């Protein structure tokens, strides 16, 4: 080889060694996904200040910070509440075993949008899902929290027990009230998700998805039973079960092709619109559908309410096409009727909205405590067909509240205003309403402390429940970890178990 050729060979050889460092090989799609997930995990490992996501047990705190009134209220001379005198002890942990923890494609987030219920075994049950609407890869679990051991676990992997397969379009949430029959059987219905940009496209509606599922889970035996899809095309945004008869009653939507144009049949709900919601009455004990269709006339049921009077088994909701008149369904006769009462008008805005939150049993005077979607707070006597305004949930106009619970002696109502968690300035109060004095008392402001100590940003709650003795309020909170107190997408729901001091709950 002559000198020139040797030089040329050396140049080529050196280039071959150096070039990969100059021109990067294009990242493959799987590599990109892995990188995105690594970066997200790295961020959250930093933001999760105490490393709670992968630890065990609960972080327990009892601090004056809970009762420090945030500046927002002082600056606005908020005089509609008092604060507790005795500091509560609060156990906290993010919900664990979220697999996959992060969504590389940016679709979905771990959240819960339904109730928390206390089982006959003293443990608390709540749902959690990664909420991948209009996409495959949904994971949906029932979480069990044991307040004695302060441990949480995945009680039910819903997709696995119902036989959902990878690559299928499946439901994204457990959105209703998963209550218990007397033998410890929890009754649940799944929910696909809402209309709009995040709903399933017509194409996916024509694929494998053909309706939402009903299933039961016995907390004593661990047995899960699928009741399949009792109403094809129906999906259940809200449900509740008459624990005496075993009849699940659910309100939802379905894909209404071609009427009058392809849409989800609840489109344009609320006042001045034309849509309607489906209603399902299904007897889980007899595995028998009692009702699966629309209510009569133009009744449009609240998509966020399924009030069942345990004394009678009658179902109540509001009718948004008729001024939020309250309506009733009788599971024995399939009969619907309008009641002679409606949701009271909000004293500040002069409007009312659909029924949203309510106690699950009546007070001694026969009334249910209720709230509508815009924070109107009222009492409802179904047997008298009467409503009575109490006021608003929070602030001057009322704040959206999704769940309320009543103390064993019926004196206190507990709730967390701002279910959506968008009103960061409210600093997530835990509110106790005294039905005797009409006083609202804050047991704790959660947001400032939990962000400062743990990096956790609270983003609202849809499910709370009291223990049988009224001493423990368990909250499932949507939230995330983020360096900034008022930022971040939903990513890590959490459990807050508030031990209410006895002095603050004397009946």
């Amino acid at each position, binding site marked *: 080889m002559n000198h020139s050729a040797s030089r040329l060979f050396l140049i080529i050889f050196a280039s071959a060694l150096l070039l990969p460092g100059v021109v990067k090989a294009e990242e493959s799609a799987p590599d990109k996904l892995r990188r995105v997930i690594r970066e997200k995990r790295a961020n959250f490992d930093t933001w999760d200040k105490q490393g709670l996501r992968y630890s065990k047990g609960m972080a327990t705190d009892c601090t004056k910070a809970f009762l420090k009134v945030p500046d927002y209220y002082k600056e606005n001379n908020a005089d509609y509440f008092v604060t507790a005198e005795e500091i509560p002890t609060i156990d906290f942990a993010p919900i664990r075993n979220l697999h996959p923890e992060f969504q590389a494609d940016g679709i979905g987030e771990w959240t819960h949008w339904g109730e928390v219920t206390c089982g006959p075994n003293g443990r608390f049950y709540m749902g959690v899902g990664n909420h991948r609407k209009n996409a495959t890869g949904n994971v949906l679990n029932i979480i069990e929290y044991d307040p004695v051991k302060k441990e949480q676990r995945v009680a039910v992997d819903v997709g696995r027990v119902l036989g959902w397969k990878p690559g299928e379009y499946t439901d994204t949430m457990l959105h209703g009230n998963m209550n218990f029959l007397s033998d410890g059987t929890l009754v649940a219905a799944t929910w696909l998700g809402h209309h709009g940009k995040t709903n399933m496209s017509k194409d996916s*509606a*024509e694929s494998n998805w*053909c*309706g939402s599922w009903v299933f039961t889970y016995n907390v004593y035996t661990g047995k899960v039973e699928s009741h399949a899809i*009792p*109403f*094809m*095309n*129906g999906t259940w945004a809200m449900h509740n079960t008459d624990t005496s008869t075993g009849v699940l009653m659910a309100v939802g939507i*379905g*894909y*209404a*092709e*071609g*009427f*009058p144009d392809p849409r989800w*049949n609840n489109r344009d709900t609320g006042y001045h619109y*034309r849509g*309607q919601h*489906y*209603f399902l009455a299904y007897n889980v004990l007899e*595995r*028998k*559908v*009692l*009702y*699966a*269709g*629309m*209510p*009569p*006339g*133009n009744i449009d049921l609240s998509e966020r309410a399924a009030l069942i009077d345990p004394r009678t088994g009658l179902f109540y909701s509001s009718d948004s096409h008729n001024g939020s008149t309250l309506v009733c369904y009788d599971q*024995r*006769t*399939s*009969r619907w009727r309008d009641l002679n009462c409606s949701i009271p008008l909000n004293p500040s805005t002069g409007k009312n909205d659909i029924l949203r939150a309510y106690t699950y049993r009546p007070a001694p005077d026969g009334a249910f405590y209720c709230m509508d979607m815009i924070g109107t707070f009222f009492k409802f006597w179904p047997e008298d067909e009467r409503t009575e305004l109490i006021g608003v949930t929070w602030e001057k106009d009322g704040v959206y509240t999704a769940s309320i619970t009543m103390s064993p002696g019926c004196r206190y109502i507990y709730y967390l205003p701002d279910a959506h968690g968008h009103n960061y300035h409210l600093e997530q109060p835990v509110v106790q309403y005294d039905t005797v004095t009409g006083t609202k008392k804050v047991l704790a402001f959660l947001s400032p402390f939990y962000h400062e100590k743990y990096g956790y940003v609270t983003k609202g709650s849809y499910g709370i429940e009291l223990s049988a003795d009224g001493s423990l309020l368990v909250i499932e909170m949507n939230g995330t970890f983020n360096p900034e107190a008022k930022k971040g997408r939903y990513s890590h729901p959490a459990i807050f178990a508030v031990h209410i001091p006895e002095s603050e709950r004397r009946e």
Partner: protein
Amino acid sequence: MDKRQLCYIVTLWMFMVVLSALSRAEEKKPLTFWGKRPSPAVFYGIRKDQEALEVKYDRKKIRHSSVMQSDSSDRFLKLPENYPFDIDFDIAKEPPSIDFAIIQGLEPWCFEYGESVNQSPISASDGFPIWSGFGDVTKGPDGCFYFSIGNHKYYGGNAFVVRYNPAIKRQEIVLDAAEVIGWKPGDWSDGKIHGDLDISPEGDMMMLTFSGPRPLAKEFNNVPYSGAHLLKFNVFSSKAEDLGVPFSGDTWGYHAWDWERGILFAVGQAKNTTLIYDTNIRTLVFAGYQPKGITWWRRCIMIDRETGCIYTSNSTPANDTSNTIVRWERKNNTFTEMKSRVPVHPVHGISFQLRAHTKRKTREGAFWCLGNNGVMFKFYPEADRVDYVGLNWGSEGIYTTNMCMSPKERYLYYLPGAHSEAWKFGTPIVQFDTRTGKKKVIAFLSDFYL
């Protein structure tokens, strides 16, 4: 005021009274296809001396005979005297041979006249017992014909399924609803089976009982009746099964069964609910009201056995989309309002509900249909199109509840005047030639059988 002025005023007043009466009379004039409804006893000709009348006029003593009387007479082809309409039809040249007998085994043979008045505890308007059949006739895979006869009562209601075997000319009651369901004397029970007795090739028949028009929706809580029963019967084994009350709070004025797909579809009379039941897995697919703006017309359930889609007309009152064709399909369990609608009646100027139709589509993909008021048309479901054909009988069309199509699709057969007024024009059996558009009377029944 003098006498002349007083006379003018009185005359003017009387003139106004007469004018007013005339205009009210004009407003009250009923549409001829439906007629003015008298009391049920009068409308159905129920009389106190019913039994005596029957003895008197049963000249051939056939009331209690199951023997088929066979006749072939030129009288069948004679235009009735005082025939009321224009003669826009042909009459067959050759008379048919017709076998005839009274349905047997219906007990009691005659009802007490008092029962005709006081059946319903709520209203005395229409609780009248009469032996009658208001549903379709179906040919089974065994070559026999099946139809239902009921006593039309509420308390002590009962309905039967009757089999007629044309090969041996024999009739028999094959299903007694009260026996299958266990109704006892004094129970509020169903006096009819009102829908189509569709039969699968394996011989299974699914049907729902009917207690219409009572109880009304508002009465349901006050009467000892929770809803109609679902029955299954096999024509080969004669085994009957009560599948209970699938949906409380309504009673089923009409039903049809897609046996291939296991879909039983029914429309409620009390509340206009829709019941869709999967007979394979014995569960409700849909049971409640339809979306706002759609009311399934309770006398039409047209099954397209090629696609599984089911059609009716939209009877939502005071709705400018009324009488559009509505489709239900199992995929997505949806109701869809189509562009097609029942054609406007050329004389009355309005559209009525869809009533009768052929059981299957023609080769070109159309159902032959009749509106409630006798409008005849073709409905192409895939094309979502209707073609108006004409009126089924007379100058304004006549209410007709059923029609059949010949095997090679050339002829349609029907009897106009379903609601008991056919005798006024001779009770013709009509053959409609789809090729020529002409009607031909195969036989006039009234005069001969009277």
